[in-house]
């Protein structure tokens, strides 16, 4: 089992190295190597999953010590439990579908080999987080994911927007990672206080179950680690990179910014839940930030004209829901929604990619009436849309309902925020779907259905998006730290009525062109302006960099220029020069003077010596 686990992890890395070494310029070979490796990983994951299922999912762990320190060993290993097994299946499964799709989507691209090498490297980094046994390893792979995401977002680096978006994603997530790193470092003293220094998840979990106390320290650590989650899972206030990251190729958006990388944050929450569960304060913060992000992102999605950006904001919003669920006490509900969301969001992105591929535009107002021309894309997109909106009985309904019920049980305010988010979600997704697929055609280029390589992954994902709710993932992932969620008819009733209501409203406005919103124009247009500007968050950060950071840098510059260089460096030189100039006068060149000074000196010294004695 463990050997298979190592293989699953390292196959994509081998693929990346093989492509980078031998096949960078050979398009066919590079794509086949990448796809082959990840598909093999997927099958191996299936085998491992089946094998573990037969043994009722024991926890397997294998570690290699990388750096033995005095009282702490930094390890690198593979942990196979329910959580990581499920995540392995999701990453490799959805990943191989998207790799396959990329073969066609990226055809003719100059950096085809580079693209697949980076994609494989990304898969490796992500799998590294999934199977990680300790915080140290997680952090390493966490950063690797950041790097590969930078490479992939900036794939079309000739385009300024893409290059900037890559940098923005990398730097923004780094901001959060600083907190993450400090949190990990603080774990050292914490565990030392409990008697055994360790970063290993299993050991830590055991230690925390046995001991209590140090709650403020744990709260601080949780919040710092959560900073990393803020960055990677694009939660407020570090959410700004995700919409910009849509500059990357569409399959990348599907893989990284919907199904896997942004899920890493939520995965980390679930993985380290034993830690978070100890601190109610941290959980409350997490829940509120998640709910706030969910609602805010949903409102921003309402006005976007770019099909991928709408999906990006909806990703933000759904991630917010997951984080909220984790904060409200159930990591299994968060992971459940993560898995179903991975299916239908990858599906939506790939569908959007298919439409973009056919029409050469990302603006939804230049599309319209695509459904008849691209039936497979249309149907599968419809499935993804309904799943995201949470329509019974698609997968989104079940996982979202679980989160809503959880919120209903624990925090009514957040419950209504989540319901509002659900309503907005179905409304903006309806707007997207009806405008692109049903409204009057406005395209300039005749669309055709995409080739089979692209549609087959769509159909497979659609199948999972439909059935994802019936596998009992919630109970499968349930851990003893999680709250037990009890069914509630009022929640089901609310969610059954809210989502169709949003879709209906969108249908009336965008498919039938009934100007329902016109009477509220005066109220709505300032809000719309605010939303288009994304709540001025980007401008805020620009201002922060422009004024605060630049002025601070200027201050440092002045300090260096005048105090360090002019005062200390040049000052030393001037002092030496001045002293030398004064001392030069003694060198008269007259022997008699020297002799006189010498004998006077000796006399003086002797005299003093005698006196002192």
């Amino acid at each position, binding site marked *: 089992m463990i050997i298979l686990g190592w293989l699953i992890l390292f196959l994509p890395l081998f693929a990346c190295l093989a492509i980078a070494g031998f096949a960078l310029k050979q398009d066919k070979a590079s794509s086949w190597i990448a796809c082959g490796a990840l598909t093999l990983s997927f099958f191996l994951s299936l085998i491992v999953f089946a094998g573990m299922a037969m043994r009722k999912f024991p926890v397997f762990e294998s570690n290699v010590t990388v750096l033995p320190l005095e009282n702490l060993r930094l390890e690198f290993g593979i942990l196979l439990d329910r959580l990581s097994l499920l995540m392995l299946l999701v990453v490799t499964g959805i990943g191989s579908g998207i790799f396959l799709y990329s073969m066609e989507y990226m055809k003719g691209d100059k950096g085809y080999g580079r693209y697949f090498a980076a994609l494989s490297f990304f898969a490796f980094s992500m799998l590294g987080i999934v199977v990680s046994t300790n915080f140290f390893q997680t952090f390493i792979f966490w950063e690797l994911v950041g790097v590969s995401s930078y490479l992939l977002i900036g794939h079309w680096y000739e385009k300024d927007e893409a290059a900037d978006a890559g940098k923005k994603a990398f730097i923004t997530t780094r901001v959060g990672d600083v907190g993450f790193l400090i949190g990990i470092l603080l774990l050292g003293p914490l565990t030392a206080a409990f008697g055994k220094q360790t970063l290993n998840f299993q050991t830590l979990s055991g230690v925390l179950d046995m001991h209590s106390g140090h709650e403020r320290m744990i709260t601080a650590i949780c919040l710092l680690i959560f900073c990393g989650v803020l960055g990677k899972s694009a939660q407020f206030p570090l959410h700004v990179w995700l919409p910009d990251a849509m500059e990357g190729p569409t399959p990348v958006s599907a893989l990284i910014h919907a199904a896997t990388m942004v899920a890493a944050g939520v995965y980390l929450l679930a993985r380290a839940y034993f830690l978070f569960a100890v601190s109610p304060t941290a959980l409350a913060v997490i829940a509120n930030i998640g709910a706030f992000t969910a609602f805010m992102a949903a409102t921003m999605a309402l006005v976007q004209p770019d099909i991928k950006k709408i999906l990006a904001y909806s990703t933000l919003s759904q991630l917010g829901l997951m984080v909220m669920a984790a904060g409200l006490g159930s990591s299994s509900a968060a992971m459940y929604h993560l898995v179903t969301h991975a299916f239908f969001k990858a599906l939506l992105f790939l569908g959007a990619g298919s439409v973009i591929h056919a029409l050469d535009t990302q603006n939804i107002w230049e599309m319209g009436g695509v459904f008849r021309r691209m039936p497979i894309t249309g149907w599968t997109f419809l499935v993804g849309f309904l799943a995201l909106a949470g329509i019974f009985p698609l997968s989104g309904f079940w996982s979202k309902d679980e989160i809503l019920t959880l919120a209903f049980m624990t925090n009514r305010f957040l419950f209504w925020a989540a319901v509002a988010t659900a309503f907005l979600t179905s409304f903006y997704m309806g707007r997207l779907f009806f405008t692109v697929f049903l409204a009057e055609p406005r395209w300039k280029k005749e669309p055709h259905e995409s080739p089979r390589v692209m549609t087959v992954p769509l159909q497979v994902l659609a199948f999972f998006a439909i059935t994802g709710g019936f596998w009992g993932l919630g109970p499968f992932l349930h851990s003893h730290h999680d709250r037990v969620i009890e069914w509630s008819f009022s929640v089901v009733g609310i969610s059954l009525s809210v989502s169709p209501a949003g879709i209906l409203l969108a249908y009336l406005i965008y498919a039938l062109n009934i100007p329902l919103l016109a009477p509220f124009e005066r109220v709505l247009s300032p809000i719309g302006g605010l939303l288009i500007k994304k709540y001025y968050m980007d401008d805020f950060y620009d201002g922060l960099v422009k004024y605060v950071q630049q002025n601070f840098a200027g201050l440092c510059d002045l300090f260096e220029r005048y105090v360090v260089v002019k005062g200390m460096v040049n000052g030393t030189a001037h002092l030496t020069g001045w002293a030398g100039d004064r001392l*030069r*006068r*003694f*060198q*008269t*060149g*007259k*022997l*008699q003077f020297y*002799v*006189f000074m010498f*004998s006077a000196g000796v006399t003086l010294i002797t005299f003093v010596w005698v006196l002192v004695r």
Partner: protein
Amino acid sequence: MIGLNHYLILSGCLFAIGMYGIITRRNALLMLLSVELLFNAANLSFVAYARYRGDLTGQVFVFFTMVVAACEVAIGLAVAILLYRAQETLNTDEIHSLKG
């Protein structure tokens, strides 16, 4: 009876004369001569002390000093000759190329 003090006073006088010579004379050769006086003043007190304490180390030391002083005189005279060739003078007031 001539005791240690007599020798030491003689040595001190010699030293003072030598020092006076170095400081007042402007001729490099005469300054070298005065330096020899300083050496011999020191040698004299060495020998006097050696005799006084019945310890031969001081006398041995003087031999070494005399050997070194001979070398020094050789070098000093050579320098003086070269100096004269280069500057056409041995007047130290006119030799001040070491002035800072």
